[in-house]
């Protein structure tokens, strides 16, 4: 059998990535939607799931396919994505961002050409507007326009954002899945029977794709010679085998995975964002071990696998998470040879996608920390985000996950923990802006940003009484906005159910249940919930404490405070200084830390008590994926001293500039929060100055990182509460990043300087200026200082 040379395979992977980055237009998604539309009439009498599958199969038959001369695997995600994701779009501006609430806005992301003239694009857009999905979604957005306009909350239909479990398909092949389905059909009810028919059609799509790629490989074989000929022969033979049949070698497993993934994404074109791989080292290790491949050989194949996740000039397929390592139910470490080979591939390629996460636990081998050191301490290199598996084994069972399933916890998108193949979390369904709720509570339901009336359920009263009762009034309003948010969020989930996903369902428990993953009547996947991303905890808690201080020391200024907020503190600078002098979260101050923990706990309970479209609970997720900027822009001045339109605090972190005593004290404040209630996830970022790490080599620095950062935070035997379970870091300083921006050619000659923003990593140089500046601001030395 052909044996891949690690050096040459690495070279071709790098050339493949370069070739991909040169692509500046994406039309595949348009062809898919257009073809599906064309066949709508033909299949319109079929049940919805079957109709979706048949239309999709027609698209898969005609979608133009190619195999690059540099590719060792067949497959691309390019045709599943539009050039839409805002934060890496150069035209993105915080001031004008309106969210992704117009499902036909994607047609603006395709530049008209001779092949795709404006008329063709507009024609499809108009047809799309008439679909049940777009009509029902638009109706939801219209119904809550007043509340989402200045983002008291936001809601969206969730696409992507799941973690399929491909292991069965890899091991047994699609043929076995088809026969499993036929077996299930024998006892299925009528609806399930139809659904199973749809799943069979969807699985046929991946067989069609493999066949079409094989034909291309065979054609290329005719003119190939030497080593490339041998590679193409292997590719052709492999495509004849997988994914129809089970894989045996690592090469076959990777090829099979790629095609299954491609179909899964094509099914959700044009925005299957944040589908995530899961525990890749565990998925592929059996095949590597079967092959007996060396670390270098394995890494070189993984390099091509990683390139697959990058789409076009800005890696438009964002937030695809890949996780490694972790533990089993009994605490045994599950790191394996594929873990280290994947790390090698990641480090050498340094690509913007897929994002890397690592599950750590108290028995994680020192070797893993040593090998992670190079990621953390090489400037411009991607850094993994870290999960505390010991904590996840406590948090998730409390949220109803069977203990035997927790071992398969992976990360969907940025930091949301889900179970591979068993958990439909609708993670980004709703977004709750506590900062705005506080502003409206203090100003009788009127926006201090625009003067618009938005809403309150509290009665008007005098300033001092309102301030004295601020907590009661705030929580009353929070409940009102939360209820409204959930109604709208469930409306979005109902809207997206008009677009069934039969293929995805086959790797999300649909073969077992007989129902679509998006079904709103029957639960298609073992676990189901809806996410709520909660914004502004620490600015609200800081505000409560500042109000207490004002009432205690200067009650006569109650009215002035409200005036000051309306005027964004203009003319009230002295009052603002007074408010800023109140204790702030992030400095290990007992009073304000307790307030923040209590607020976090109450809001988590409020969200958790809400029911989604299937009657399952919402999941509180305290993460703000750059939305601390976007939503902060719509929040007026707050009593903590934060000015109008300034950012909110990031995730569960203190507001920028408020943690004045370094990372150790921030860690202490953080550890008081109720992580056991954050079953939807949370975000926290540490900026770390590399100068505090004295070891001479990366390995030593990796161990230092364990001792100085991870052990106190994650594996602290003196902490009696559920420990934090997520952290992402940027080991750099604001000064370094300013230099990179000023002289990109000097500091990032390849044009790629990877940084983390929220859960994902991106090319820092691709980011819009507002996001670049946000990263720089949150690296303030006062909060990032870890040594002295």
């Amino acid at each position, binding site marked *: 059998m052909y044996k891949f040379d690690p050096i040459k395979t690495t070279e071709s992977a790098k050339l493949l990535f370069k070739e991909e980055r040169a692509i500046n237009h994406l039309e595949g998604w348009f062809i898919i939607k257009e073809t599906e539309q064309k066949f709508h009439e033909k299949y319109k009498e079929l049940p919805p799931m079957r109709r979706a599958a048949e239309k999709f199969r027609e698209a898969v038959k005609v979608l133009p396919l190619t195999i690059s001369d540099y590719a060792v695997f067949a497959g691309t995600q390019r045709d599943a994505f539009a050039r839409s994701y805002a934060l890496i779009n150069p035209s993105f501006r915080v001031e004008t961002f309106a969210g992704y609430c117009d499902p036909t806005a994607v047609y603006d992301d395709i530049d008209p050409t001779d092949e795709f003239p404006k008329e063709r694009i507009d024609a499809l857009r108009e047809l799309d507007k008439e679909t049940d999905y777009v009509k029902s979604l638009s109706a939801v957005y219209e119904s809550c326009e007043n509340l989402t306009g200045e983002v008291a909350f936001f809601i969206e239909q969730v696409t992507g954002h799941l973690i399929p479990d491909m292991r069965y398909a890899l091991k047994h092949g699609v043929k076995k899945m088809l026969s499993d389905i036929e077996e299930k059909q024998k006892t299925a009810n009528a609806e399930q029977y139809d659904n199973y028919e749809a799943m069979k059609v969807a699985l046929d799509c991946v067989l069609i794709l493999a066949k079409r790629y094989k034909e291309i490989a065979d054609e290329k074989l005719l003119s190939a010679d030497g080593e490339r000929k041998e590679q193409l022969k292997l590719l052709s033979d492999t495509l004849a085998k997988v994914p129809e049949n089970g894989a045996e070698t690592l090469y076959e497993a990777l090829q099979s995975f790629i095609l299954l993934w491609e179909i899964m994404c094509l099914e959700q074109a044009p925005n299957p964002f944040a589908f995530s791989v899961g525990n890749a080292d565990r998925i592929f290790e059996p095949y590597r071990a079967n092959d007996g491949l060396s670390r270098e050989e394995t890494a070189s194949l993984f390099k091509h696998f990683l390139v697959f996740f990058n789409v076009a000039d800005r890696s438009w397929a964002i937030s695809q998470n890949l996780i490694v390592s972790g533990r089993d139910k009994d605490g045994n470490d599950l790191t394996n040879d594929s873990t280290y080979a994947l790390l090698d591939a990641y480090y050498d390629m340094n690509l913007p996608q897929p994002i890397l996460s690592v599950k750590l636990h108290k028995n994680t081998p020192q070797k893993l920390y040593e090998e992670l050191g190079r990621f953390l301490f090489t400037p411009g290199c991607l850094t993994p985000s870290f999960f505390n598996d010991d904590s996840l084994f406590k948090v998730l069972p409390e949220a109803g996950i069977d203990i035997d399933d927790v071992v398969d916890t992976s990360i969907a998108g940025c930091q949301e923990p889900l179970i591979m193949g068993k958990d439909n979390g609708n993670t980004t369904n709703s977004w709750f802006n506590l900062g705005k709720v506080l502003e409206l509570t203090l100003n009788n339901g009127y926006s201090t940003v625009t003067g618009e009336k938005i809403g309150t359920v509290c009665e008007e009263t005098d300033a001092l009484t309102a301030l004295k009762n601020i907590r009661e009034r705030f929580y009353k309003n929070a409940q009102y906005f939360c209820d409204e948010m959930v109604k709208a969020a469930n409306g979005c989930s109902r809207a997206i159910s008009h677009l069934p996903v039969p293929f995805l369902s086959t790797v999300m428990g649909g073969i077992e249940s007989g129902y679509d993953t998006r079904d709103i009547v029957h639960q298609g996947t073992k676990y189901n919930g809806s996410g709520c991303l909660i914004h502004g905890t620490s600015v609200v808690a800081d505000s409560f404490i500042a109000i207490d201080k004002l009432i205690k020391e200067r009650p006569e200024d109650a009215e002035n405070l409200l005036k000051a907020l309306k005027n964004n503190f203009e003319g009230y600078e002295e009052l603002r200084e007074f408010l800023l002098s109140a204790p702030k979260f992030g400095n290990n101050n007992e009073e304000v830390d307790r307030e923040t923990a209590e607020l976090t706990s109450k809001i988590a309970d409020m969200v958790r008590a809400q029911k989604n479209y299937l009657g399952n609970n919402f999941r509180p997720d305290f993460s703000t994926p750059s939305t601390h900027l976007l939503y902060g822009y719509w929040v007026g001045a707050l009593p903590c001293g934060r000015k109008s339109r300034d950012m909110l605090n990031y995730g569960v972190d203190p507001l920028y500039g408020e943690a004045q*005593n370094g990372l*150790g004290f921030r860690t*202490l404040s953080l550890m008081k929060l109720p992580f056991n209630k954050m079953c939807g996830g949370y975000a926290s970022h540490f900026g770390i100055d590399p*100068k505090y790490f004295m070891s001479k080599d990366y390995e030593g620095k990796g161990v230092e990182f364990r001792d*100085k950062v991870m052990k*106190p935070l994650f594996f*602290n035997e*003196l902490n009696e509460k559920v420990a934090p379970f997520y952290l992402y870091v940027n080991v750099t300083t604001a000064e370094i990043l300013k230099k990179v921006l000023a002289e990109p050619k000097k500091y990032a000659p390849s044009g790629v300087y990877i940084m983390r923003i929220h859960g994902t990593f991106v090319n820092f140089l691709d980011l819009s200026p507002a996001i670049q500046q946000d990263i720089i601001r949150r690296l303030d030395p006062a909060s990032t200082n870890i040594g*002295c």
Partner: protein
Amino acid sequence: MGNNSFIYTFQKGFNYSQDGPGNRLVYHLAGCNFKCPWCSNPEGLQITDSVAKTEIDDIVKESLSAKMIFIDGGGVTLTGGEVTCQKVAVLTLLKKLKENGIHTCIETNASLPCCEEIFRTVDYMIADFKSPFGDKVFHILGGDIETIKNNLIFRVKTGKPLLVRVPLIHFFNCGEENAKAFGEFFRELQTLSNNNLFFEILTYHEFGKEKYTKLGMEYSVTDGYVSDDDVKILLTELKNRNLKVINT
């Protein structure tokens, strides 16, 4: 400094293992009797208006609230400046921390007299020993070598842990002659110890250099960096004398 209810500090933060065992809350105390030209904390050389005057009880309270992250045998470290410049207050603080079950450590140049009570009380002591030659200690640093030696001998005799650190500076204390003299004195200490004596070589860095500009001070060191060979000479000398050399 006779007051025993306040401590003057200019910086605080956490550090792991490099300022004593485990994860530690480190307070930098203002004021120093030395004038080392390579000092990385020039902002702490004097007690000025810009340093923080903190109640000892507040430091104890803060330390107690941070107890949760004193992992791996950690605790509180007082460093400088020179901690013994505030010896009355430092002794009070050390005793209060110990009463509250917090492990204590100081980093000192061990050059001031009449500090025995501190050296007897503190759980872990780190002492810089910058040169074995009295004239250099006197002329360049401004200290008395006999006092330093006596203080180190005193600490060793208490039987409590002592880590002696040599900051290796090229123009100041490198080479065979220095290494031999370091080795001789350290061997003398070793004969008095009960296995709680450790040595560490630190190499010159310029982390504090930028601060000099900000403070309007001149940074005069131009020949500080040491080579691997410079380190090796001293390391070999110490190892040949069976001294316990560690890296923190």
